[in-house]
């Protein structure tokens, strides 16, 4: 009897400390963002009834030219880097499938760009693309070409994309390779015996079978591409103009540079809505709860 009475509060004793911290550090701040997005307040001001604007800040966000430009840049960035990283990463995984000597060393090397600080990544590539001192111009100047990478809006955007591709293609590669190595070899063998060509095996058997993992990989990359700001903060600070101002960076600058806290909160709500939808989509493909009960 004592046992039964005791066991009712035991799960809470295990779960509550973590839940309390998340409630204070995540959940309450999110609610506060929602509340602040209704008030036109500057940084450091408390929201007052006079500053209440209802949903007007959201309408403002959608008609604000800087916010719209930042959204367009972010969308372009996310599509370009995700498409290229998946294409290159999956292509390389198909090429390098099978036993390669030293693969564990290679995988260790591939993880490095994801582990070091995004700030470091941004600064390294800021130096790489530096007009006068940078290695890239030292290497291309042999062709009589000395572009000012980070001072030109389209070249700066290209540079930011190259940096992201350098940083995260290895992630796609590792995921795709793990998926391919998990495939049932007999399926591929059966297709071979039936006379399927190499590309037929890849297109009709391997890719469809690893598709769920590729979808998870795509969603994870997409969410991260919409979430990060530190690399561009260190590399270009969004410039020149707004050409590399990714949306999270725009949120940050709206709050702490132009100090429009309500505006920034409304931008935050928009971003949060998008990442939450993507996060929910990720759960459709990969829900640890469902996995736990089925196996």
């Amino acid at each position: 009897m004592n046992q039964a009475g005791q066991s009712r509060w035991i799960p809470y004793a295990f779960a509550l400390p973590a839940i309390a911290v998340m409630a204070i550090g995540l959940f309450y701040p999110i609610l506060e963002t929602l509340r602040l997005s209704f008030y036109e307040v500057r940084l450091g001001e408390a929201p007052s009834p006079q500053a209440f604007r209802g949903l007007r800040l959201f309408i403002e966000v959608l008609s604000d030219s800087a916010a719209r430009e930042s959204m367009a840049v972010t969308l372009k960035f996310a599509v370009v880097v995700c498409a290229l990283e998946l294409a290159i990463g999956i292509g390389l995984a198909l090429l390098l499938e099978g036993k390669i000597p030293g693969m564990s060393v290679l995988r260790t090397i591939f993880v490095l760009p994801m582990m070091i600080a995004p700030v470091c990544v941004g600064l390294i590539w800021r130096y790489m693309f530096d007009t006068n001192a940078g290695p890239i111009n030292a290497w291309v100047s042999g062709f009589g070409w000395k572009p000012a990478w980070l001072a030109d809006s389209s070249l700066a955007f290209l540079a930011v994309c190259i940096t992201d591709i350098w940083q995260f293609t290895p992630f796609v590669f590792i995921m795709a390779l793990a998926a391919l190595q998990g495939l049932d070899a007999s399926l591929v063998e059966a297709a071979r015996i039936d006379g399927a060509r190499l590309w037929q095996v890849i297109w009709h058997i391997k890719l469809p079978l690893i598709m769920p993992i590729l979808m998870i990989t795509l969603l994870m990359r997409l969410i991260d591409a919409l979430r990060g700001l530190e690399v561009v903060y260190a590399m270009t600070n969004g410039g020149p103009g707004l050409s590399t101002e990714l949306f999270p960076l725009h949120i940050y600058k709206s709050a702490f540079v132009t100090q429009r806290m309500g505006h920034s909160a409304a931008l935050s709500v928009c971003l949060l809505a998008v990442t939450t939808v993507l996060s929910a989509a990720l759960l459709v493909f990969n829900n640890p709860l469902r996995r736990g009960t089925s196996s």
Partner: protein
Amino acid sequence: MSALGATRSNGLSAVARFGQLSIAWLLALAVIVPLLVMVSTSFKTQRQIFDGGFSFIFMPTLENYRNILEGRFLGYVGNSIVVGVVATALTLVLGTMCAYALSRFTFIGRTPIAMGTLLLRTIPPAVLAVPIYFIWTSIGLAGLGGLILVYVALNLPFTIWLLYGFIEQVPRELEESAAVDGCGPFRSFFYLILPLLKPGLAAAGIFTFRIAWNELVLASILTDRNSRTLPYAVFLYIKDTGIDWGELMAAGVLVAIPPLIFTFVAARQIIAGLTSGAVKG
């Protein structure tokens, strides 16, 4: 066995295998060259950096490191270590306990907690910047303590679900038989389960420490001159008069060292963490 070996190597010719190997190592080179550029630049004088273009061959100097370490940099290293270690320890303890509750008990509120934390895994730190600044400054929680609290909260959702996967692999019979022997739930958690979770704890610990050590946005708004952590301190070397690349890269190297060490020591756990959930094994 030999048939399996044949399908594994795909009957590739020696030329094809050589091609594979070259592609693989070219790729590794592409990944590693920018890192080597950072390291080599950190050992150059300002003159070597700006004269005659980039080169990997030069007379190295420790000048940049000496300049950095004579300034306030060491204090910022200390701040980062405190934040990283405390946030990681707290996240692991709280996260494992919560994961254990979710894995082993059915209780009222379990589903909302599970779904909530699953969705919170992807929250953009930039979204937290405004409210955290607003709340933290109004209750006077800025500084290292406030920063640690945010980092623990930010890391808990991922940690809970990474460890949930590891706990699910521990057979329930273990605790059931311990309970028969009179071992309570807390004792069996700390003495039976926790030691079995070492690989999971290593992976979760590395990921948490990495975020706490590398994070810039929240650190920049919650810290001041004295409580600054490394990623923000690095920007001190970008001055109005221009960038001191040598010192900046030396600072970058020092910031990158702990994550690099972790990667070389525990690459297997890191890859398991990165692919966790999506790929079995």
